[in-house]
């Protein structure tokens, strides 16, 4: 985004927000009418006629009536606006003059000035403003200008903090470094690059601080300790409050003026923030995308065996003719037949015109039987299908590998079976039979009854999947107490047994540890123990070894295999790593672009990959080098040693 269209687009976004526009109009009207008080008032705000006290609104010559001294409320409101707004503005200017330079210096140079100024900002903000103003009033007298001057100092940390944060964030940016290297003076860098970035936060903060200054100022005057020689909104409040029983309506006008101004300022501030954030989020998204690309490129540069690392362009080059085309056919029928079937690969219409086969009936002997599963996000014209026509079966005691690149839909399939799709995601078609029960039509609560005891889940990233605020032990024993009905002691005993079983040397100590006190490998063992703790019939493991060190990976895989055969579990292992597949799986299903393209037992698939995509994945090797199958075999065997 070029700098020239920035203010314009932000302004456009601001103007597109009706609430913000209303706020801006209200504020503009209030400011204008106060500025034009001498024209609009029609009366002297100080002219007092006791005979005319408490005239009702719409009296002759007094559009809003008169106060206890018979002064015209409309005139006082307009002239009072001048004083109140100028007073608040004074506080704002003082706060900006102190806070902005201090924030720039602290953020840009850091060091001792940063520590000292942070400490001072904390100090200033630890005292309630009104108490400080009362103290100042005790010795300096009741001048609104002096009060607002002091309040400006009290408000200055508001500017200081946002500026400092913004500068610290931008200081490390490459273009600032580039400017430094190219020999630009600090003052020029601050003026050209830094100020551009902090401008937005400063304007937002200004609108909020102005509202606070106005509120405090009228609060102080309302208390009767303010400057009552001038007609300000706060003084009008004080005056009206004294006659609250006689004429409560006199309180209404200054209250409305203050309330509307403060509300308009906050609404404008929020509108500005939204307008700026929209711009910020789009550029942040772009930045993140760039990072992903870099990371992938870096991984591709390594001799990695991960499918994830394969560059899409490299895939295209490797199989320019056989790569499936744009997969727009939603009803692509991908059928996965019973494990004994000879040929389990069904051609895709996108690259072959053969008619889809009949989808076989769900397999009653399977623990899990998925048919024509479709998962979509959003609704209406913008919905996006991420899994389509996935059918698979898993039997007791069998490990099914679900293999594919990132974004192939394998994790979405797993979450759909668990009933744990992220917000916005839902099963839009197909059936999920677990032990003969249809899950897609069951209520959320009744699917919950199955989790833990029927279907369990091992996540990918160990550290982020343990609640940091609870001890490992309680996270292990609570589900057993809830789901198996164990009492506290029995759950603890069983949890300790499980920790021992998954190879944790000091179960008692780990039981009493918080997640941040144990290593990633241990955390993954804890998660595996948690998953098998309620003796599930089906275990879904989503990349269970990806986040672990290579040495730990093999141990964890062996542990999974042992637990699986001990408990006769059916396992779906989601992975992108053929080494893991070769090591632990009985059968493998290959996913691409949301559908299963090929399914077979491991031996056959590795020996005779039928689908071009599988061939590409397995066979994208350097010419003359060992094939991917050999490499994966070697790795898998190495893992066993």
């Amino acid at each position, binding site marked *: 985004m070029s700098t020239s269209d920035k203010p314009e687009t932000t302004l456009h976004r601001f103007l597109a927000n009706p609430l913000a526009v209303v706020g801006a109009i209200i504020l503009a009207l209030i400011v204008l009418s106060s500025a034009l008080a001498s024209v609009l008032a029609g009366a002297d705000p100080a002219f007092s006629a006791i005979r005319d006290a408490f005239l009702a609104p719409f009296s002759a010559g007094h559009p809003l009536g008169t106060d206890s001294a018979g002064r015209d409320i409309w005139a006082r409101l307009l002239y009072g606006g001048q004083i109140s707004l100028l007073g608040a503005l004074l506080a704002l200017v003082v706060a900006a003059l102190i806070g902005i330079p201090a924030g720039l210096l602290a953020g840009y140079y850091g060091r001792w000035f940063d520590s000292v100024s942070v400490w001072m900002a904390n100090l200033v903000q*630890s005292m309630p403003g009104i*108490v400080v103003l*009362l103290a100042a009033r*005790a010795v300096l007298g009741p001048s609104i200008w002096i009060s607002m001057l002091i309040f400006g100092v009290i408000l200055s940390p508001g500017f200081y903090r946002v500026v400092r944060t913004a500068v610290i964030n931008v200081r490390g940016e490459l273009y600032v470094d580039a400017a430094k290297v190219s020999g630009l003076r600090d003052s020029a860098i601050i003026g050209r690059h830094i100020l551009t970035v902090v401008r937005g936060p400063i304007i937002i903060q200004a609108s909020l601080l102005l509202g606070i200054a106005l509120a405090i100022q009228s*609060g102080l005057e309302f208390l*009767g300790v303010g400057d009552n020689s001038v007609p300000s909104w706060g003084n009008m409040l004080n005056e009206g409050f004294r006659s609250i029983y006689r004429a409560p309506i006199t*309180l209404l006008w200054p*209250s409305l003026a203050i309330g509307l101004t403060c509300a308009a300022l*906050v609404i404008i501030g929020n509108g500005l923030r939204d307008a700026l954030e929209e711009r910020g989020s789009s550029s942040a998204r772009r930045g993140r995308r760039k990072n992903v690309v870099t990371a992938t490129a870096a991984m591709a540069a390594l001799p990695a065996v991960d499918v994830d690392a394969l560059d899409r362009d490299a895939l295209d080059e490797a199989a320019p003719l056989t790569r499936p085309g744009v997969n727009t056919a939603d009803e692509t029928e991908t059928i996965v037949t019973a494990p004994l079937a000879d040929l389990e690969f069904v051609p895709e219409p996108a690259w072959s015109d053969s008619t889809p086969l009949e989808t076989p009936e769900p397999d009653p002997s399977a623990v899990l039987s998925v048919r024509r599963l479709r998962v979509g996000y959003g609704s209406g014209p913008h919905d996006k299908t991420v899994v389509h026509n996935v059918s698979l079966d898993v039997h007791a005691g069998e490990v099914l590998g679900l293999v594919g690149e990132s974004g192939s839909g394998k994790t979405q399939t797993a979450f759909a079976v668990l009933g744990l799709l992220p917000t916005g995601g839902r099963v839009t078609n197909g059936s999920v039979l677990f032990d003969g029960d249809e899950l897609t039509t069951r209520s959320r609560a009744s699917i919950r009854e199955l989790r833990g005891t029927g279907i369990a889940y091992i996540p990918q990233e160990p550290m982020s999947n343990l609640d940091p605020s609870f001890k490992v032990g309680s996270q292990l024993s609570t589900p057993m107490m809830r789901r198996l009905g164990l009492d506290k002691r029995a759950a603890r005993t069983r949890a300790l047994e499980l920790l021992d079983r998954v190879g944790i040397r000091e179960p008692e100590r780990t039981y009493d540890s918080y997640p941040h006190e144990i290593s990633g490998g241990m955390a993954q063992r804890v998660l595996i123990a948690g998953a098998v703790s309620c003796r599930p019939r089906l275990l879904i493991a989503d990349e269970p070894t990806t986040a672990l060190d290579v040495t730990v990976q093999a141990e964890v895989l062996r542990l999974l295999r042992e637990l699986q055969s001990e408990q006769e579990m059916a396992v779906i292992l989601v992975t992108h790593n053929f080494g893991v597949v070769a090591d632990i799986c009985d059968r493998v299903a290959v996913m691409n672009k949301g559908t299963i393209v090929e399914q077979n037992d491991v031996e056959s698939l590795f020996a005779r990959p039928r689908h071009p995509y599988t061939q590409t994945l397995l066979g994208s090797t350097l010419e003359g080098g060992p094939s991917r199958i050999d490499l994966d075999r070697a790795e898998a065997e190495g893992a066993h040693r």
Partner: protein
Amino acid sequence: MLSFIAKRTLLALSQMLVISAVAFFLLYLSSSGIARTILGEQATEEQVAAKTAELGLDRPLPVRYVEWLLGVFQGDLGRSYFTPQDVSDALISRLPTTLSLLIATTIVAALIAFALGIAAAVYRGWLDRLVQILSIAGYAIPGFLFALLLVIVFAINLGWLPATGYVQLTADPLGWLKTVILPIAALSIGMIAATAQQVRGAVIDVLRQDYVRTLRSRGLSEREIIFKHVLRNASGTGLTVLGLQFVGLLGGAIVVEQIFALPGLGTVAIQYTSRGDIPVVMGLLIITSLIVAVVNLLVDLGVGFLNPKARVA
């Protein structure tokens, strides 16, 4: 844990020391002719000189500060210039009213803000939008305007509750409740608005965490996950915001006490500051900063209790 408390206490004490020193010097340096002000225009030069000596105002400022500070540690805040009252007596007798108001407001605001924030984050949709709009309104409009509105509607027009007056909590709990409902309502609105907004954000963040999905996969009930795991992980943020809001609440209490004629610190503050009674002002400042320091310490301890990782620091 003990060293953590000791460190925080030391920090709070040093902060109070700086505040009191700065305030003491600024207040005395910017006020002149204190004795003349007390005695009035008719007093002779000799009388003024005698009064100055009596109050110790002729001695060097640093000496007076150290004396004042030593007195503070013994609970002696000096004597008011204008009334024959000990400052500590005047302030401490008013403290329970203000403290009961502050504590009750904080509890009410915390309960409502957490309930609204959690509900908005969990249910989203129209409830979420409503909470957002109410938050903006509660934040934007100054608390004393709400107080005035409440007085006019509930005390003057409907006559349900007394507009002014105060009954000691210990003397008549029900009567106390009647006199503080409106002040508490007025004070808590801003606090609720700010806190609910932050709790909502924190709960949404926690609900997106991986461990929440894993807890669900274990078959725990949604109720247990939200009220045990999500609440605990989101409360740190809520507590911190409540602590920050509390400073503003102290200021708000002064105004609201005046509106409802509650005999708390606020009324003392206004009465004495308009006369320039520096010993009372100093006492007020030191008590205020003490309350803020205690609240900050409690917030730190609470966050440490909720978040095991923060306990180490």
